[in-house]
């Protein structure tokens, strides 16, 4: 089980590699794309002005540097779709990433792109992005026809659901899961909104809008019903605040807040999950560093055979915010942490 870290420049390489990152992923948005489509159409699920490299030479420097550490680099080509015009451009980019740059894997969402790449017989492996919304074992089975070496599961699956999928396909494909930073209030693969800076994320934008309930078929709600619904809405908005990295805040000593699956690491290790993904290509180097250290410490304890509840206890201590852990809203995955072992 590897620790997969985001990286957005060569300058971050040494720091993250020395701190425990075992795999890297990043994006590239060449200037030509930006000029043609601006920030209105994203090449790889991140604003082109943040979190991505811009040239193949920069990326090659990063890939070569990572290779010296023995760390593979994966590249996101994970827009939900590419039009015919974009597809030929992205295919050319993929060939360059595979040949000239020598990346280890391409992370893909669009089934059409996945199919096209699978026919090229690239050296680079293919990873299916979480945006492809692989929510069940049948979907894993469907995707195998394209020969991916890894499928990244959405954050919205439970540990038992993940366990079943890993058990069913352990010998055919690796499974990667999210482990730290940034949630998504929606099913990422079925969210048709943009995070364009002008309007921001839809989920957080909703929290600031006026909202009014109406009873089914237009009937008036009673005062009691309205109070209950409003209270639930308030709880939901609080949950969205957690999903959004606790309102994009950090602890007093600079540690990242936000959604987390650290307590599930012992379960993922037992299940046979291949990789734990830290979110945040666009995050500051400090946040990336703190995130890698945090995940790696929990992974190290797990690998060393520490009892599950001890690992969970340590994971919560690392977050340094028991009030947030206890809220129940900061967890990607609910795990049973109350039983004795």
């Amino acid at each position: 089980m590897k620790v997969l870290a985001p990286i957005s420049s060569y300058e971050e390489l040494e720091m993250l590699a020395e701190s425990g990152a075992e795999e890297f992923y990043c994006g590239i948005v060449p200037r030509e794309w930006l000029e043609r489509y601006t920030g209105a159409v994203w090449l790889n699920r991140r604003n082109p002005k943040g979190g991505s490299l811009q040239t193949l030479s920069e990326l090659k420097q990063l890939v070569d540097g990572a290779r010296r550490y023995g760390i593979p680099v994966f590249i996101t080509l994970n827009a939900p779709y590419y039009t015919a015009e974009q597809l030929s451009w992205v295919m050319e980019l993929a060939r360059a990433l595979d040949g000239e740059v020598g990346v280890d894997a391409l992370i893909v969402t669009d089934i059409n792109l996945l199919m096209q790449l699978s026919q090229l017989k690239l050296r680079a492996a293919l990873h299916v992005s979480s945006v492809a919304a692989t929510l069940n074992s049948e979907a894993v089975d469907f995707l195998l026809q394209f020969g991916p070496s890894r499928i990244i599961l959405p954050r919205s699956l439970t540990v038992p659901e993940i366990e079943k999928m890993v058990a069913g396909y352990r010998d055919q494909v690796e499974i990667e899961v999210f482990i730290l930073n940034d949630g998504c209030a929606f099913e990422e693969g079925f969210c048709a909104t943009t995070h364009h800076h002008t309007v921001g994320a839809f989920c957080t934008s909703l929290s600031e809008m006026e909202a009014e309930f109406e009873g089914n078929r237009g009937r008036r709600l009673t005062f009691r019903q309205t109070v209950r619904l409003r209270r639930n809405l308030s709880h939901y908005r609080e949950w969205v605040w957690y999903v959004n990295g606790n309102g994009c805040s950090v602890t007093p000593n600079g540690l990242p807040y936000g959604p987390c699956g650290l307590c599930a690491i012992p379960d993922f290790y037992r299940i046979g999950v291949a990789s734990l993904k830290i979110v945040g290509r666009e995050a500051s180097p400090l946040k990336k560093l703190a995130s890698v250290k945090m995940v790696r410490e929990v992974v190290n304890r797990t690998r060393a055979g520490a009892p599950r509840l001890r690992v969970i206890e340590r994971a919560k201590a690392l977050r340094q915010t028991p009030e947030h852990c206890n809220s129940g809203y900061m967890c990607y995955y609910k795990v049973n942490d109350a039983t004795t072992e």
Partner: protein
Amino acid sequence: MRGGGHQDVIAMEWSIHISGDEEAGATLRPGDINNFDCGLKLRPVLALTAQLIEEYFGPVRFTRCAYGNEFCEHLLPTVERLEAVVSAARRCGLQLTFLTPYVSDAGIEALKPLLNLLNKNGEPCEVVFNDWGVLNLIRREFSKVVPVQGRLLNKSLRDPRITGMYAATAPGFVPQAAVVSLRRSNLDCSSYAGFLSRMGVASVELDNLPQGVDLSFTENGLKANVYLPFGFISTSRICMAAGLHYQKKEKFQPGAPCQRECQTHLLEYSYTNSPLGNKDQKFYLKGNTYFYYHTEAMLRTLFEQARSGLINRLVFQPRLPMMWERPSKLMEERR
């Protein structure tokens, strides 16, 4: 008459999304809106839609009905309910399309008896899939049903806060190339059309996009079915309404069991915090899914496209498509 009369309307299928067998014989004229119990908030949208349909197409006769839902596996009907709809559709001379949502492994299991029923049906029945796993299941076990790609698998952005503004202000706000790509999807790649064809898929379902939808992909041989007057914005396995009956700490878990609380209410959002001036926009949350509604301009554009022969079918949804029928007492007893 801006619609320009309806004498030259080409052959196009009309479908209605029904909530149960008793609606299989529904008609649609502006006056019929009362029959759909749509509520005060959505009533103006439906009234406008019905009025414009009349203007462009005259009296509409539904020849097909859609049943089921695309967004939540907890709203899958019972086999008995689906059986009743199959019978009613046959009785009324309607073709049937069964809508399925994105699903977990548990949802796959819940779908099997429903698909089995349709697979045994005398006539081939359309099943809309919004999950590649469901298509996989259909192809392996239920080869007599006709798979149709659902609108959740059409990945065009449809963010009503901004994508309509892109189109309205191009090339000032964004370049024309961006608007063109936002109106399209991977459907305009012949390779994708070929892939769908190999999967046995001949039709795809779409939303009418705030930025406009480019239907030129139909030249690749695919048929386009478009929904109106609502489009989906976003959906989630984590449902606000389902949280109603949980303790605060236990709320908002993926796929959490619910009591179908979504059937009791809807939530209307007003875009009062818009930075772009479109503060009169409304969005609707029903259960786990957010929807936008079609403006008059969007409807007129869609109907013009329909009249030019680019659309195979229009699917009229008189309610936000999150309906679920409580099994009747009789059916409960039979179970």
